[in-house]
């Protein structure tokens, strides 16, 4: 292991009943890389971030930055910048004093604070009160404050969850550009796959305290390592038993679970079927503009989604569905 930021078998156990364990998790992060921790609530992603920041002490494993073991270094001396979910701006200080907070004792603190605000496009906001700012502006102040002391690693806790949906997509791009311009190694937590894919170079998927898979977005989508990743990342239809066998065309009879993305399913030509496929009735059609989702129900009650041209079928049609590409998993989901 020799990334810039090495997480080596880190583990945190919470007592109580039922007791919860996060980890052991191992992750090597390259300098300047942006890594997303993606998972549902309770997956341990926030615990992971707080372990990195030093707000929680691990029960096992090490955290190493640039070859320095920081596992027991308190947050105040770890030199990791953090942007909190609700920003945690100090309400008793103005914007300038908030940004300069981490620069105490530095001779050019004022100049650096101005510079940090300029970098997030908030030049001239020094004397503003934090509660007068919009949500997006507060987020940028929090970012400027975290970056001003020139930390080694930037940590972001659900960085966009507090913003209007309309603002999120634009902010996401701006945030990525800014981080890349600064060149800082970044770890952020999110529960939204789109955000993880858009903002992260690599995505680490967590589930129930375990690291399921780490990889680039297309790798996770096309080659998920587990049934959980396949269903959590992107839309997926899960088939078992006879339906699975019909779609997998009998290959590898040992397969018990088959996952097919909606866009990898298509309606077979009326005459050309017969080689396999799954027969069913179109129950619903959800039009999205460029395409439509068709909800198909088989004779035995399985329901699944097909993404196709809007005019590919109508509700009530009897159809046969074929798979272009299937993902196979054993009963244990691996």
């Amino acid at each position: 292991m020799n990334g810039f930021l090495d997480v080596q078998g880190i583990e945190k156990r919470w007592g109580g009943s039922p007791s919860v364990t996060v980890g052991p998790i191992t992750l090597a992060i390259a300098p300047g890389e942006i890594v997303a921790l993606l998972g549902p609530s309770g997956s341990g992603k926030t615990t992971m971030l707080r372990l990195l920041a030093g707000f929680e002490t691990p029960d096992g494993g090490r955290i190493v930055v640039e070859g320095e073991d920081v596992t027991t270094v308190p947050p105040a001396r770890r030199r990791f910048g953090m942007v909190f979910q609700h920003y945690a701006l100090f309400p008793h200080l103005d914007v300038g004093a908030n940004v300069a907070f981490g620069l105490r004792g530095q001779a050019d603190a004022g100049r650096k604070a101005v510079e940090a605000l300029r970098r997030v496009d908030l030049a001239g906001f020094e004397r503003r009160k934090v509660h007068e700012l919009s949500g997006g502006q507060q987020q940028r102040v929090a970012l400027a404050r975290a970056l001003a002391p020139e930390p080694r690693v930037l940590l972001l806790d659900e960085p966009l969850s507090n913003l209007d949906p309309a603002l999120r997509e634009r902010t996401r791009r701006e945030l990525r550009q800014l981080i890349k311009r600064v060149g800082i190694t970044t770890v952020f937590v999110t529960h939204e796959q789109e955000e993880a894919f858009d903002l992260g170079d690599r995505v680490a998927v967590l589930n129930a305290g375990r690291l399921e898979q780490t990889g680039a977005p297309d790798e996770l989508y096309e080659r998920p390592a587990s049934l959980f990743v396949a269903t959590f990342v992107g839309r997926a239809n899960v088939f078992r038993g006879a339906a699975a066998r019909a779609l997998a065309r009998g290959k590898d009879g040992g397969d018990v679970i088959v996952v097919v993305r909606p866009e990898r399913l298509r309606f077979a030509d009326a005459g050309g079927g017969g080689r396999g496929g799954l027969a069913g009735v179109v129950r619903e059609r959800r039009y999205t503009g460029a395409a439509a989702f068709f909800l198909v129900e088989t004779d035995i009650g399985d329901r699944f989604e097909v993404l196709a041209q809007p005019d590919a079928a109508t509700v009530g049609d009897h159809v046969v569905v074929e798979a272009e590409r299937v993902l196979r998993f054993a009963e244990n989901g691996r």
Partner: protein
Amino acid sequence: MSHRAAQLAGGALALLLAWLVLYPILVVARDAADGAAIRAFVGRSGEWAALWASVWISLASVALAAAIGVPLAFLFEWFDFPGRKTLGSLVALPVVLPPLVGVIAFLFLYGESGFIARAVQALLGLSEAPWRLQGPGAILLVHAYSMYVYFYLFTRAGLAKLDVSMLEAAQALGAGRWATIGRVVLPLVRPSLVGAAILTFMTALGSFSAPYIFGGGFRVMTTQIVATKLNGDLPLAMVETLALAAVAVVGLLLLRRTEGDDILVALGKGIAPRPRPIRRAGIRVLATATGWGFAVLLLLPHLTLALVSLVPYGAWTTQILPPVLSFENYGRLFSEAERLRPLLNSLWMSVVSTAAAVVLALAAGWLVVRRRVALRRAIEGLLALPWALPGTVFAIALAMTFSVHAPPLRWVLVGTAAILPLAYLVRALPLTGRALLAGYRQLDPALEEAAASLGAGRWRTLARVTLPQLRPGLAAGASLAFVAALGDIVASIVLYTYETRPISIEILSSLRLSETGVAAAFGVVLMVVSALVLGIGARR
């Protein structure tokens, strides 16, 4: 009720309140404009000494109370150790103790014939008591004991509202533990600290029983005023009263200015920091010992009072511990007519004044918040006014105003059964007023509208919807008002007659007759009733 009728009702309420709380002060101000009295006040060094004593005692009380209450609040809010919950509420106990009860409990415990002094005397074989509990030191001791609770409760409330991510943000930016407290925590809880400082300053400035009993030759303004009044020098008493009122108002305004902007404590929905278990064994033992030690220290006066109340008259002379214990004193309290009388007096006068204060506050809440009458600011200000002035000021003002027959504003009420409930009512108005105005403000008007749309008339809506919703605030305000009236001494000592004497006066005369057991028994009754009423009032 039509708009016009509501405005009329608002005007009537404002007039009634002005007559109750403002007019007597104006009477004092006019009577104080007496050249000879002012010259007498300005010329006597004793007057200036008493005024200065009031100021510095109050400021020192604030400093002492903060020095005890603030660290204690941090200890109980931030750290977990065995017994934290129980001790945390025990530590707030002195707040239920009427000031006079605390003072006599201190007397029995630390006074020259109290347990501690007797024990030291016996231990060292001294021929007389090793110390006398008297003068400014004794007053400050009692103040610190009873007033640190304000800092303790306010600071805990402030800390509980703190967002834990604020502290983590400071740490992530490189601030250590002390830097975090100095640069983030204290600025954020400043409104709470200032609130506690104001309350402590006002309470200490108006404090009467501690300087009255422990002052000795040392006079503060409250005791000076009462002494002058009892000597019959009324114009001088008026000038003194006005001087004390002026100090109170100036102090209040100065402290208010330090409060700063009304900052939001957190921008997002914050989670308060959880109390952390203390890891290092040595510190955990120390914290636990401090907590328990403090609780014992705090309970000691209460226990002493209970013990002394069990000592029959004359049974305890030179021994360290009383040789005989019995319930004789309690028996006398309830069987002797002249002892039962003050108990009943205090009870009925407190009930009547509290009920009147609740009714006025309910009317004020409805007119100010719901109907938003033109005089709403005046009504709110008048309700709060008695809080801004020491109790002695109102006691003297009421005594002056209602000893003259000049209808329609002045009648002779002094000497009648009406004057003490009236005085208690004035002191109760800020308590019930604040609670019910806050309650009304939290009330969703849609609830009353929903009741109306379901066919409920005005009284049915009040009884079935409004009052049940207001119950928590009403119970809190009413219980505080009742306990304040029950334990009052300042107004009582100026305005009582033999027929209407309340418990506090009976305690003082029992002490004077060396009936310490009876005085203590009265104290215990006062303490228990106060604790019960406050306990009921705090129930949700």
